[in-house]
C-alpha cells in the first residue's frame, strides 16, 4: 500500500473530532447530539487474462452529526473533517432541526443502556501487502482457474484489502471506537458451448488474511462452478421442493430479519406485524445473534445508538421470540431496544443439520438453486418471486443444470415449509447457515 494506516492515530484523531463536534453542538444550542465518524483505507487490484487491469487505492472518511433541539431532529454529514467543515456541518444540522416536526419518541437511547463493556473483539488484522504481492495473488487465482479445461474466457480475479476505524459518541458522554479489517479474493470465469456462454465466480473473504482460502483453490472453484452450468435447460413449470445453496439461504434469513426489524414493524411494512410469540418455523429451528463473538464478521460491543449489544434469540423453537429493535423503533412499538440499531450482528442457526446429500435425497425431485436474480421480495406481504439458476434433481440425485426459471411463494409459508438445513455452513458473512430445503414452491420455466 502507498501509505501505512496508523489505526491508533486515526482512533485518537476521530475521537477528538467527535468530541469537538459534540461540544460545538451543545454550544450552538443542541439539547442532545450524536456523532459517527469513520475512516477506511484500502487497495484493490484486478487482473484479467494474466495482466494487471486496475490498481485502485481508496481512502474514505466521513463525519455524521445528529442534533436534537427539544424534540426536533436534524442531521448533516461531510467527507471533510476539518475544523471549518465540522462547524458548517453542526450548523447545518441545527438549521434543519428548526424545520423538522416534533417527535415525542425521538432522542438518544437512555443513558443507562450505553455500553459499558467494550472488549477488543479481535476484528482488526492489518495486512502488510505490497501492490505487487496483491497482484501476484490475484494472478495465481486466475491462472489456476483458467488452467481448468473448458474455461474459454475470464472476467478476471481481484484482491482487495482494507482496514478502518469508526467512532460513535453522544452527549450522554458515551464514546465507543472500533477498528476492523476486511480482505477478499474473488475470481469470475467464462466457458462456452453451442448453447452460449456461462459465467460463475468464487470468492473468499475474512477479517484475518490468514483465514483466506488459497488463491488456486478459489480459482479452481470458480472454474468448476462455471463449467457445471454449461448445457443448462429450462425446467418444467410446476410445484416442487427447492434446495437453497448456503449463500442464498443466508438471503432468506436476511428477509426474515428485515421483517423482524422495528423500522418495518412500526411502519406496518412487515408481514410479521403482531406475530411476537407465534409459530413461524418448525419447532426444531432457532435463530440467535452473537454480537460479541471474537473475530467474527459483524462483531461489535455497541450498536449504532451506543447501546450495549447482547445475545438475542429472534426465533426460539420455531416461534418469533424477539423483534430486532433500535432505541427509536422500540419506543414506537412500546418495547425496549434489543441493541440492534444498525442491524443484526453474527446470526447463528440452532437446528439439527444434515449433509447436502441427505437433503437431496429427502427432496427426491425438485430444484437445487445456486443463484438468484432480481429483487422480487415484498416485505409487506412476504410475497416472493425471483429469477433462478441451478440444477434439476431427480431420485435424490443432481441430473443437469437448469436456468431461466423463477421460484415463487410466500415467505411465511416458505418458513413453515422448511424441511431441513445442511451442515455445509457458509461462514463468510454475518449470517452463518448451511443449505435450506423448502417444500412446495412454484417453479416457472417451460
Amino acid at each position: 500500500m502507498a501509505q501505512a494506516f496508523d489505526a491508533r492515530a486515526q482512533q485518537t484523531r476521530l475521537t477528538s473530532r467527535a468530541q469537538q463536534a459534540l461540544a460545538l453542538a451543545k454550544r450552538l444550542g443542541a439539547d442532545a447530539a450524536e456523532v459517527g465518524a469513520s475512516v477506511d483505507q484500502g487497495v484493490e487490484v484486478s487482473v484479467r487474462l494474466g495482466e494487471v487491469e486496475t490498481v485502485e487505492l481508496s481512502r474514505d472518511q466521513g463525519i455524521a452529526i445528529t442534533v436534537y433541539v427539544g424534540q426536533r431532529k436534524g442531521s448533516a454529514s461531510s467527507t471533510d473533517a476539518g475544523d471549518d467543515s465540522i462547524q458548517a456541518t453542526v450548523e447545518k444540522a441545527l438549521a434543519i432541526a428548526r424545520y423538522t416536526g416534533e417527535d415525542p419518541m425521538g432522542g438518544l437511547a437512555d443513558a443507562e443502556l450505553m455500553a459499558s463493556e467494550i472488549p477488543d473483539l479481535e476484528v482488526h488484522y492489518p495486512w502488510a501487502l505490497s501492490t505487487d504481492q496483491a497482484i501476484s495473488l490475484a494472478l495465481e487465482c486466475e491462472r489456476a482457474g483458467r488452467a481448468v479445461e473448458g474455461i474459454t474466457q475470464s472476467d478476471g480475479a481481484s484482491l482487495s484489502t482494507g482496514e478502518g476505524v469508526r467512532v460513535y459518541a453522544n452527549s450522554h458522554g458515551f464514546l465507543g471506537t472500533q477498528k476492523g479489517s476486511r480482505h477478499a479474493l474473488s475470481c469470475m470465469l467464462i466457458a462456452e458451448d453451442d448453447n452460449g456462454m456461462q459465467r460463475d465466480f468464487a470468492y473468499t473473504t475474512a477479517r484475518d488474511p490468514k483465514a483466506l482460502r488459497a488463491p488456486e483453490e478459489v480459482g479452481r472453484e470458480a472454474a468448476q462452478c462455471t463449467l457445471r452450468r454449461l448445457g443448462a435447460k429450462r425446467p418444467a413449470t410446476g410445484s416442487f421442493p427447492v434446495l437453497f445453496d448456503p449463500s442464498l439461504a443466508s438471503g432468506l434469513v436476511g428477509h426474515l430479519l428485515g421483517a423482524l426489524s422495528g423500522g418495518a414493524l412500526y411502519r406496518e411494512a412487515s408481514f410479521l406485524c403482531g406475530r411476537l410469540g407465534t409459530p413461524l418455523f418448525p419447532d426444531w429451528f432457532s435463530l440467535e445473534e452473537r454480537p460479541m463473538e471474537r473475530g467474527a464478521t459483524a462483531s461489535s460491543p455497541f450498536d449504532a445508538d451506543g447501546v450495549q449489544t447482547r445475545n438475542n434469540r429472534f426465533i426460539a423453537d420455531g416461534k418469533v421470540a424477539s423483534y430486532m429493535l433500535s432505541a427509536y423503533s422500540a419506543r414506537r412499538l412500546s418495547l425496549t431496544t434489543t441493541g440492534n440499531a444498525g442491524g443484526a450482528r453474527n446470526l447463528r442457526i440452532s437446528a439439527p443439520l444434515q449433509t447436502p446429500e441427505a437433503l437431496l435425497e429427502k427432496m427426491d425431485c425438485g430444484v437445487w438453486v445456486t443463484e438468484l436474480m432480481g429483487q422480487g421480495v415484498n416485505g409487506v406481504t412476504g410475497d416472493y418471486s425471483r429469477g433462478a439458476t441451478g440444477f434439476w434433481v431427480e431420485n435424490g440425485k443432481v441430473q443437469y443444470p437448469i436456468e431461466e426459471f423463477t421460484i415463487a411463494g410466500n415467505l411465511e409459508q416458505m418458513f413453515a415449509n422448511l424441511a431441513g438445513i445442511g451442515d455445509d455452513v457458509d461462514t463468510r458473512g454475518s449470517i452463518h447457515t448451511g443449505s435450506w430445503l423448502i417444500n412446495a414452491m412454484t417453479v416457472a420455466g417451460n
Partner: protein
Amino acid sequence: MTQLDQAASILLTPGGLDLDSLDTGLSHAMGAGIDYADLYFQRTWQEGWVLEDGEVKDASYSIDGGVGVRSLAGEKTGFAYSNQITAEALVDTGKTASGIVRSGTRLSGQAVSPVSAALCYPGIDPLAGLSAADKVAMLKLADRVARAADPRVSQVSASLSGTYEVVLVRASDGTLAADIRPLVRFNVSVIAAHNGRRESGGAGGGGRYSMAQLRDAGVAERYAKEAVRQALVNLEAVDAPAGQMPVVLGAGWPGILLHEAVGHGLEGDFNRKGSSAFAGKMGQRVASKGVTVVDDATLADCRGSLSVDDEGTPGQHTPLIEDGILTGYMQDKLNARLMGMAPTGNARRESYAHIPMPRMTNTLMMAGQDEPSDIIKSVKRGLYAVSFGGGQVDITSGKFVFSASEAYLIEDGVITAPVKGATLIGNGPEAMGQVSMIGHDMALDTGIGVCGKEGQGVPVGVGQPTLKLDELTVGGTQS
C-alpha cells in the same frame, strides 16, 4: 460567468488551484509509460427530507467532494483519489495512479481544448429554489392528499431529495470540461389495509431541474394519488400465473426491460472483453423488425441526461438497435480506443472516488404504429404489466429479470383481475425477438431509476411505448 469558470471557482479556488495549474497536476498522473490520464474534480451537496406519521421528523444534508485521478496504459488503469483538492493531493494521487506501470516513454499532454457542449439542463443549484418551510409543506400536502384519498390508507411516507453537483474534467488528450448537474426527486409510498390484508403502493419522479419546478408541477398531489391507487389495486390482487405466456408491457417505466435485456449487454467494456451475450453481433439481427433502441443523454432535463459525461465527452443520441439490427455500443474513452471506435458520451462514475465505466443514460425504444388497445385485444391469455420494481441481468448468459409491482391478467383480449407482483425472466437477445407489436404511445419514465454496476450507482432514465412480447416466463405462484 461560463460553467467552466463557475466550476473552477467552486472546485479549484478554495484549495489554491486554478485552471492553469492543472497542467502541472496532470503531469504527475502522466508518468512513464502512461498514455492517458485525467483529473476529475467534483463537489456534491445533497439534501433529503422525509415525512412519516404526518410529520417531517428527520432531514439530512451532506457535502462530499474531492478529486479522482486516473492513469491509463493500454488496458491498465491506475486510480487514486483524495477528498482534498490541493496541489499536494494532485502530486500524491497522480504518482500513485501512474504507478500502474513503471517504465516507458513519458508523454506530454495535448494542449488544452475546452469542450463545447449544448446544455441538456440548467446549471443551477436545485436545492436553493425552495425554502425549508416550502419543502416541509410539500411533504405535508402529499400526506394529506394520500390520507384523504381513501380510508383504507394506513401509512403514508413521503420524501423530497435533491443533489447539486459540480464537476470539472481535465485530461491529457486536451479535454477541459465542466458540468453543473441538478437532480431532484419526490416520492410517496403508502400502505393500505383492508380485511386483515395489507399492501403497498408507491409513486415518484423528478429530473434535472429545481425543487421549485418539482413543486410547481404538482407532484405532491399527483404521486400521493398514484401511490394510493396502486396500493388499492394491489389489495384486490389475486395470485399471479406461472409459466410462459404473452406479456404486454405498458409505456414508460416498463422500459426497464430494455435496460436489462439489451442495455447492459451493449456497454463497451463487456463487448471488448467478449463477456456479453451480444459480443460479436454488430450488424446482426438481435431484435424483431421495428425495434429501434437508442441511448439518449440529450433529452431535456431528464434524470439520466448528461451535457457532458464524466470524461468530458458531450452527451449524445446513440442508436443501439435500428429496426432490429445491432448498430452501436455505448463507449467510454478507454473501451472506445481499445475497440477502435469513438467514445459516445457514456462514461459515468458514481463519484470522484470511483472509476468511470461505460454506462447507460436514458435508454429508449422508439414508438411503433400499433394502437395500444389493439395490442391488449390481440392477447388470449397473458399478463399486462404496468409498473416494475428492480431488475437484473447476467450479461454473459443474457438472462435477465424484472419484477412487476402492478400487473393484470389479460383474458380473451380484455384486462381483467389485478395480480400480485411477480418476476419476469427471459434471455435478452431472444426476448427482443419476441416483440411482435409496438405501440405509438412512447413515453418516458417519471425519473426514478438508479442503475447499479460493479457497486456503483448512477441515475438513469428509460422509456418505451406499449409493447407485446409473444412469450416470456412469468414467475407467479399459480401453475
